[in-house]
């Protein structure tokens, strides 16, 4: 257990020194500024519009940015054989990928917290609105990343190139947000096979539409993520990590 924490903390340390991470932070500053500009153009409440737009852009930028860092980082270690030392010498080599997974999740939480703190302070100073519910949705973005990075870890153990894994992850991320609409659409199918197939797809793809907090903010809905959705997100992510660990341990050749 301690080894997972060690790897996770070192992952955060390494990534904070990475220029790619600095670039992600810079993009976050740009998108938050852009949200401010969009909120001025909006006909609705500018404070809520700023919160909603920012949350949406922060989610896309942070999740996809850290996800790319994670996949390229993991594959680079595979390429230059650094992970061979862990695999050969560690009693339980799968802890290495679990540690990396946890590390990138901590990095995402850090990035999101910094971004949301900036948005919150801007709301307070520019609009004089205390939009405390923004903080609740930081967790929401964290759960989305937990699920999608679990999928990424599984793809890492299956595919040998980062590009394939990344493209599939981005596709899963966007399709996952349409999950509920897809379920409603396919419920009209009459053929048993089509209905069964659509149900299988629905349960396999992470249901990220449960975590579309940016819309809730826009409509001034501060209920936050439900406990059941939160539990679903954690269970889905953990299942993916368990599958990834199993596949990693079953590799014939490292």
């Amino acid at each position, binding site marked *: 257990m301690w*080894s997972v*924490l060690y*790897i996770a903390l070192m992952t955060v*340390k390494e990534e904070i020194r*990475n220029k790619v991470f600095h670039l992600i932070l810079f993009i976050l500053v740009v998108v938050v500024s852009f949200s401010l500009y969009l909120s001025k153009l909006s006909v609705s409440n500018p404070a809520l519009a700023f919160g909603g737009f920012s949350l949406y852009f922060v989610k896309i930028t942070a999740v996809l940015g850290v996800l790319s860092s994670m996949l390229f980082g993991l594959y680079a*270690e595979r390429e230059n054989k*650094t992970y061979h030392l862990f*695999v*050969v010498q*560690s009693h339980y080599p799968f802890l290495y990928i679990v540690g990396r997974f946890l590390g990138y999740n901590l990095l995402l939480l850090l990035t999101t917290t910094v971004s949301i703190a900036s948005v919150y302070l801007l709301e307070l100073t520019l609009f004089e609105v205390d939009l405390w519910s923004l903080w609740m949705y930081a967790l929401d973005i964290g759960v989305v990343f937990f699920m999608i990075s679990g999928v990424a870890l599984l793809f890492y153990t299956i595919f040998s190139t980062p590009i394939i894994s990344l493209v599939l992850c981005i596709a899963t991320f966007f399709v996952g947000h349409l999950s509920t609409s897809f379920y409603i659409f396919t419920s009209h199918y009459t053929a048993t096979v089509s209905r069964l197939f659509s149900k299988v797809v629905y349960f396999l793809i992470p249901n990220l539409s449960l975590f579309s907090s940016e819309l809730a903010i826009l409509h001034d809905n501060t209920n936050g993520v439900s406990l059941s959705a939160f539990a679903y997100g954690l269970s889905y992510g953990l299942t993916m990590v368990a599958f990834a660990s199993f596949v990693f341990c079953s590799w014939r050749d490292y």
Partner: protein
Amino acid sequence: MRVAEILGVSKVFGEKVAVKDISFSVSERECVGVIGLNGAGKTTLVSMVVGLLSPTAGSVKVFGKSPRSPEVRGKIGYLPELFAPPPRLTPFELVRLFCGVLDVGRCRAEHLLELVGIMDVKDKLISKLSKGMKQRLGIALVLVADPSFVVLDEPFTGLDPLGRYEMKEMIRELKNRGKTIIFSSHILQDVDELADRIIVMDRGNVVYNGLIGDFVSTLSAESLEDAFLKSVKGEV
């Protein structure tokens, strides 16, 4: 006592046969050098010994068990060829990380860095270190859990004469500490100086397994290099 036992091992990658029906064993405290041309199968062989690759046929036993079993993993130290440690950590942080990962009770990070002679750069980013320093850091990582069996894949690759000298000194130090060692190398002079026994590989086969002196005298050669060249050119 036999530390490693390789029995009828073969490895096939698609159509290519990398290693063909190899058998040998390594005894405790022995230092074995594996030599051969590029593509002879040295890296494939050492990768199977440490459990990174699974043999297509045959079996590899380390301390009587599969090298992938959790009990054995803690007893093996491995340095891969062209070792590239994480560039954005410092040597001290990386050794501490390994102490944590390998669940070493008392982390002797500073002692290990002192031992391999890179204490003065312990807080420098690894990306700023020379190739030789990175190799020395690799040896420090190998020693973190104080393994009794050490496998080094091409430890001299890319090192300048000073780096090579220091690496040889470190391998001698490992021998003095009673470690069982397997290392592969192209540099026959270094193998001659360090190995108790050699395994000569050619196109996936073991063409010789025994003492260096016997290899040289059997081929009526003047040196290990001369004998090796005769062996791979088929002048025997």
